[in-house]
């Protein structure tokens, strides 16, 4: 294994720890904006968050320095993750603008496309069937006060 490859693997291994440490620093900055102690001497609202954020920073850095094997743990394709996240995002984006039925249709179709291997028409038809079933369940069955079609 070349030196450059070794550096690359170590960088991948250290990334989760460094991200956690960065989150810790960000939380620490916000927590320090809160009173650490109240005028009465009691622990303030920033007390426990500051302790936790400092711990997170230190633990993240220690993990970054010692982690091994994350580079091997990362699986290959990201299609499933991207499509399922897009399905949730699509639902959140469309629901207040065009209603429950189209939002469910988009979410169902995007989720069906996550695994790959289905024709676009079958995906749209399957998504439509799921959307109709979900609309019948939530709006018809449970009486959810949301329009099936149209903005809220």
């Amino acid at each position, binding site marked *: 294994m070349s030196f450059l490859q070794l550096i690359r693997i170590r960088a991948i291994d250290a990334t989760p720890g460094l991200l956690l440490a960065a989150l*810790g620093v960000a939380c620490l900055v916000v927590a320090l904006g809160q009173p650490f102690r109240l005028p009465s001497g009691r622990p303030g609202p920033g007390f426990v968050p500051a302790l936790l*954020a400092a711990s997170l920073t230190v633990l993240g850095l220690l993990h970054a320095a010692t982690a091994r094997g994350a580079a091997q743990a990362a699986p290959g394709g990201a299609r499933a993750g991207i499509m399922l*996240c897009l399905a*949730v995002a699509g639902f959140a984006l469309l629901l207040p603008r065009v209603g429950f039925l189209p939002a469910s249709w988009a979410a*169902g179709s995007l989720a069906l496309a*996550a695994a790959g291997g289905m024709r676009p028409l079958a995906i749209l038809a399957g998504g439509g069937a799921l959307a109709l079933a979900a609309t019948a*369940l939530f709006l018809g069955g449970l009486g959810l006060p949301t329009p099936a079609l149209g903005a809220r």
Partner: protein
Amino acid sequence: MTEALAMLGAGLGPALLPGNLLLCLAGVALGTLVGVLPGLGPVATIALLLPVTFALPPAGALIMLAGIYYGAQYGSSTTAILLRVPGEASGVVTAQEGHLLARAGRAGPALGIAALASLLGGVIAALVLALLLAPLARFAIAFGPAETAALMLLGVAAAVALSPAPLLAAWALAAFGALLGLVGTDVAGGRPRFTFGIPELADGIGFIPLAMGLFGVAELIRALESGGAARRTLPVGSPWPARRDVSAAAGPALRGSVIGSAIGLLPGASTLLAALAAQAAERGLFRRRGRWGQGEMAGVAAPEAANNAAAQTSFAPLLALGLPANAAMAVLAGAMFLQGIAPGPGVVAERPDLVGAIIISMLVGNAMLVALNLPFVGLWAALLRLPLRLLAALVIVLCCGGLWASSGSVFDLWLLLGFAILGWALSRAGLDPTPLLIGFTLAAPFEEALRRALVLARGDWSVFLQEPASATLLAAAAATTALAAWMRRRPE
């Protein structure tokens, strides 16, 4: 004993209400389904069903969610035996001997023994739970704030120790989860913390989007990434075991029930650990006879009894101490909070009807599981041919619709997306999100206990070492972490 009988007596009526019996049946059937299908575990299912519980009374909601958890242990054995793929983590132990039996044409009796051993484990664990809850709660109710804070730290240490993630990362995730749990208005002073001017965050981060995203959506992503194609199963045949199978399995099932019941009581314990311990005990016994590894009923009976027993006794730390022992219990704790019930010693003392109903429902639910699993085992096996992509799409649509129905907040849908991405990222980094969830669940009570302990001690940190119970709990937390560090350094 009298307390246990009184608790069971108080719970009998609510548990046997027709509505609650139906919810119990729905829970165990759903649990079996998700246990059978590799890809969606009980934690994800319970998390995804949290919005449904809003519309249910507390007893019914908890009976159904508990049924999903122990029902999944039954269902997992089907996939483990027929495919050598565990539907739920603990099934990996059953798969070893169980699949050998299936390959030898004895899948039916192996599945039958798995169901009967699970029944035995479930019944013994329910009785253990009934006997221990009241004394445990009495012990915990005497705790002051220092002991409570130390107990919570022990709970996190145990969850961290048993997490498959590296120790430092698991502790870091627990701290991050606790920080997320502190988002919102500070209960002591009324000041907003970590809200960044977003009004929706004033009440804190919702438990449902967090649990659904980290466990529900992220678990589906993991399942699809690892390939969710339908598989060919081995023929099942009649599930009724012969008399020699029953006599070969009786002892291991009994020992597994005892081991599983004991392990489930420990904070941080998992059904996988219980199944492994029961298998190790049986292997020790079998090694002397040299028959292990050729398809032994003991290798099915012991882990199946143990995992079901542990699933049920793991309710003890939650109900008596307010300490979620694992991710499933953390989600159940969230369900209790959503119902306005704080898990802990108070609930055992003040709501014996609720606790008793949960325990009685376990006895009823286990009987239902045998009735569902033995005659219909072929039907459950046929479900393995269901493509995962259809299940994933169905779950996503129900998950988004369910979250919208429960909160009516688009912001919660974006939170769901954020936590799904976080769960996916953690999965790709090889990190388990359980410590994060436990940290999130315990953050608020831990902060309250820590601050009260320091106020009472006038800011003197040594109070945690001066109180004997607190010092013992902190020593146990340190020992748990040290042991976990040592175990991780040992070669495979």
